[in-house]
């Protein structure tokens, strides 16, 4: 069984975001980088699958500057993945190009059974790379996955609106974009961390993966902080008074009901 897990490194959720003076992006100094939280579910699902099969290789792939994304890869290796692959770049890529790089790298590695990703990266909030990757790999995708049962066919469940679940059967390889609730990611153990130091991490360039950074489809510009909210209006009094006043304000001042 050959499994790939796509990992993105993102700013920690507590990070204060500051914008560059020319508004071309965010200030990266001082940011604490972590594994995208949804990608932890992807790593865990891959590990569970390998354990259930009793055999297989899990390769963790990440597109980004080697100097920092290696750390996220090491974390996945410490959880139990077998080896890593960095597509080393400091260029800003859009989701199309990121998926192109991942597809290029995965194709170069040979055949695969499953590719696990997160359902979305919490920095760009795109929820696009898995579907585009699947298109380039010419296999089906399922996103927002809350249940995964490998086999022939593989049965995958996804969550949509109002708690509705869609169940798909898949023949052959596919891309599975994992949601919270799919599993509980394990912590890296101390022996795991020691072992991870010796696990191999391969490198590739964007050119190796078949991507030209200049052929970007969408670019981000004019970064802005959200407008300041006006000062909160506190409503005092006993519960009955507060309730009455709030209803009045919502209907007469805010006019939202």
């Amino acid at each position, binding site marked *: 069984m050959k499994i790939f897990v796509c990992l993105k490194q993102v700013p920690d959720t507590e990070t204060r975001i500051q914008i560059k003076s020319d508004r071309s992006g965010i200030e990266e100094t001082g940011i604490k980088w972590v594994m995208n939280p949804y990608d932890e579910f992807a790593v865990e699902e891959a590990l569970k699958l390998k354990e259930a099969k009793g055999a297989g290789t899990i390769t963790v792939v990440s597109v980004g500057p080697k100097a920092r994304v290696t750390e996220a890869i090491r974390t996945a290796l410490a959880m139990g993945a077998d080896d890593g692959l960095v597509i080393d770049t400091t260029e800003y890529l859009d989701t199309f190009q990121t998926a192109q790089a991942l597809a290029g790298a995965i194709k170069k590695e040979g055949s695969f059974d499953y590719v696990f990703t997160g359902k979305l990266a919490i920095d760009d909030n795109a929820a696009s*790379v898995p579907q585009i990757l699947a298109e380039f790999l010419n296999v089906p995708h399922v996103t927002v996955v809350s249940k995964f049962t490998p086999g022939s066919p593989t049965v995958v469940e996804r969550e949509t609106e109002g708690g509705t679940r869609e169940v798909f059967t898949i023949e052959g390889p596919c891309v599975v974009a994992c949601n919270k609730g799919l599993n509980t990611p394990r912590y890296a153990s101390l022996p795991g961390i020691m072992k991870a130091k010796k696990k191999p991490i391969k490198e590739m360039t964007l050119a190796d993966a078949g991507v030209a950074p200049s052929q970007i489809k969408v670019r981000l510009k004019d970064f802005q902080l*959200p407008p300041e909210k006006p000062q909160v209006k*506190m409503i005092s009094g006993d519960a009955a008074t507060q309730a009455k006043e709030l209803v009045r304000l919502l209907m007469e001042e805010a006019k939202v009901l």
Partner: protein
Amino acid sequence: MSKVFVFIEGQNEIKKGGLELLTAGKNSGREVVAGAVGASAKALAAQAGKYGASSVFVCEAAGLADYNPAQYADVLTAMIKESGAEVVLASATALARDLFPRVAARLNSGLASDCTTLEMTASELKVRRPLYAGKCTAEVEFVDSPIKFVLMRANQLPVGTPDEAKSASVREFPAPAESAAIKTKEVVKGASSKADLTEANVIVSGGRGMQGPEHFKLLDDLASVIGATVGASRAVADAGWVPHSMQVGQTGKTVAPSLYIAVGISGAIQHLAGMSGSKVIVAINKDPDAPIFQKSTYGLVGDLFEIVPKLTEEFKKALHK
């Protein structure tokens, strides 16, 4: 005339997000081609015409009642190609968010997902989207993209008044072949008949201050009076008091209703990330220093168990229910 393709969804009526985009299309001065897929796609055509579509592409088949990523991608690709549109708009529903990145890639184009502002004229398009969980926003510029795909969050744009005299021409598309690789086995409908959180116009959310799953009835009562959908914080979802599908925040749903009422929620940064785009925010919390108050429009310090029932009562009176 430049064209815009608007993807519409709905059972018998077009969902609000779709109406917002038809209106934006009409107001831009572009020719609007609407596209609908499903078991009752044709039922949406007349309404689309009244909201500004000059033609509606439909693909109606019993086999398309449930979403299938491969088949839907095939039809949408065919429709968009045929339309000749250079802009494609869809409301960022669960279905559209799954589908459009793949369709855009197939058409060698880029996509701006989860946008919150859209300014469109006959010749220009300007969209912005939140990044880093709403801590900032940026404009998305299309560079080397033959078609510009935009997914818009619902509740961001006005809905125009329908012109009852207008109608659209209807063009039928054949149902795509079944995919050998992926089949839709079944769809298990969720219990909730209410609007989904991501589309809801009013949301009442409960946090750890609710003290237990049994007290969510208080919020259900309030919600049913004001037509709200009930949400929750992660603390509550993780405790198993409510399903994860109700969680609002960075690792839950991103919502932008007109009114968000946070009950017994402290206002952690990851919760704010999912709801700070709401127009009006009300916080009910016993701790006057709870961070949620800093992001709120109206704040009520007090015991939720006293305030919420009173609030339900007052709304009943005010709304004559």
